């Protein structure tokens, strides 16, 4: 019983339904995309236009002035490099840990399976903000050797590689759901062919799951790219995007206008710059990625 217009017999009924649907979806999409459009439109204006009340969305004078300011203030090279490294570390190690755990929870029968699943739900449910103080203390005086791991990527590497990183619970849940829906014959066939479970996992299960793996990788990478929580807590001195963009303060510009909102515009321009790599990845993988939503991970 799909919700569609097939059951409406009359043609006008069909058209009205389709029009209403179109309007609703258009409204939603407009609401979602509007901030980004606004950001970009205001960032490509010249400061003259900002002060000019007759200029609406479309700028009268195009200028990349604000983008230049943003680039200068952002230390673009070092912040991109550092954010890229952090995001890569986090996403790869989370992918590794979460896939292993999810597969075991989904397809391998062992004692304590339900208990461990409850533990992953627990990890999902407790927001890291709640134990932020303990996390800070933990990594500031790590183990009995009291090593200071603040400003060291090792802290977040440990968290991610051991399955308790940012939103790890969610990834484990999604992957587990995916693995549960794979055909049950796969392991049996592999076993008959003489493969050990580990071999089965790497040679058969993983290639079947590459859509879901890519999705988890993308989520993890993007969320770490724009992350504020771990940046503020564990990497306060490292030049992450969070630190750099939050630190943008513009008191006067050399164009001589009273720019009380220059900070806002430059920060938004910096956000746009920061999001460009993500948008490129997203658009490139879009088909691949939307397919995972479409098939919801069914292998066939």
């Amino acid at each position, binding site marked *: 019983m799909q919700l569609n217009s097939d059951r409406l017999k009359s043609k006008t009924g069909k058209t009205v339904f389709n029009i209403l649907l179109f309007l*609703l979806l258009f409204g939603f999409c407009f609401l979602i995309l509007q*901030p*980004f459009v606004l950001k970009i439109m205001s960032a490509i204006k010249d400061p003259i236009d900002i002060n000019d009340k007759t200029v609406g969305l479309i700028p009268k004078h195009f200028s990349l002035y604000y983008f230049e300011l943003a680039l200068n203030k952002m230390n673009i090279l070092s912040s991109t490099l550092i954010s890229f490294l952090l995001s890569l570390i986090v996403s790869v190690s989370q992918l590794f840990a979460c896939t292993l755990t999810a597969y075991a929870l989904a397809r*391998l029968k062992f004692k304590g399976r339900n208990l461990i699943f409850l533990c992953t739900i627990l990890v999902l449910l407790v927001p890291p903000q709640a134990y932020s103080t*303990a996390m800070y203390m933990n990594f500031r005086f790590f183990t009995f050797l*009291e090593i200071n791991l603040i400003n060291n990527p090792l802290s977040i590497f440990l968290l991610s*590689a051991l399955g308790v990183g940012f939103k790890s619970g969610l990834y484990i849940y999604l992957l587990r759901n995916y693995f549960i829906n794979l055909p049950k014959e796969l392991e049996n066939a592999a076993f008959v062919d003489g493969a050990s479970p580990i071999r089965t996992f790497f040679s058969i299960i993983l290639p079947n799951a590459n859509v879901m793996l890519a999705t988890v990788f993308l989520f993890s990478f993007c969320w770490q790219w724009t992350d504020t929580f771990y940046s503020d807590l564990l990497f306060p001195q490292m030049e992450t995007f969070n630190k750099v*963009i939050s630190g943008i303060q513009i008191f006067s510009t050399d164009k001589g206008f009273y720019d009380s909102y220059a900070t806002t515009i430059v920060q938004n321009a910096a956000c746009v710059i920061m999001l460009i790599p993500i948008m490129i990845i997203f658009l490139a993988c879009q088909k691949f990625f939307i397919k995972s939503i479409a098939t919801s991970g*069914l292998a066939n």
Partner: protein
Amino acid sequence: MKKTPKSKSLDSLQKQTAYLFVAPFLAGFLLLFLPMIAKTVFFAFNNIKLSGDGYTTTFVGIDNFYQATMVNPDFKGQLILALRTLATELPTVLVLSLFVAVILNMNFKGVTAVKAIFFVPVLLATGIVLKVEQSSGILTQLQEITSVTTGTDIDMAQFTAITSLLERINLSPQIMDVIVSAANGIYNVLNSCGVQIFIFLAGLQTIPTALHEAASVEGCTAWEFFWKVTLPILSPIILVNAFYTVVDIFTKPTNTFFNFTDRVAFYDNNFGVATAMNVIYLVVVALILFLVWFAFRKKIYYENL
């Protein structure tokens, strides 16, 4: 088939390697996660002083909790605000994402593009981008610059328009408040829906087409099908989504409660009291989640999980 002593069955093989597979997670859970939670509870009962090399803890019993609830002027307000936000956003997000998921489950021209658009806020409107939007929104309101499009909160003009319209109908101010905040909040709600839509979509796809056909043979309308078949099948997913939404609302950088406790911790240098606040918050949320689960547990339909 006789099992020879040397070969093992698939089940026992799986049992052995299973522990290997979950080893990373177990290590993280036992060595990192649990100790941090335990430390959090421990800190809540202590006074923490950071010295050059380490930190010292002095046991103060429930003094931190007393300070949090009785002495600190802002805590109660912040907690109530956080809970009220939760109460309004949670059902809205769930209902809206279910609605959108049902629509996106249809096949119409451009459905892929719409799916992509709904996904944009999940990846892009998070973290620092959200923080910047919120802070610049406040700035715009403070300076009352309505003609400057700074790419921020878009509500100002709509806010006044909706309010004046509703005033003419002579609605009671409370109802008007709810409606206006719902209308304004639609942007926030839409942005919070992304992952939930994904999860619901995945769930909707698991409804076998055989069920659709059987239902239409029996003469079931789409509406009846939704309530009698789709919702029960989705009920465990709705619960999971509810839990995830609760957590998601709390972990947004726009959630002021944790900003507040962070300030207490790092600026007032009062780690103990801040931790006590966090613990109170966690307990309250856990209670709410438990109540939700308890209220709905009879209605959840489990099918060979």
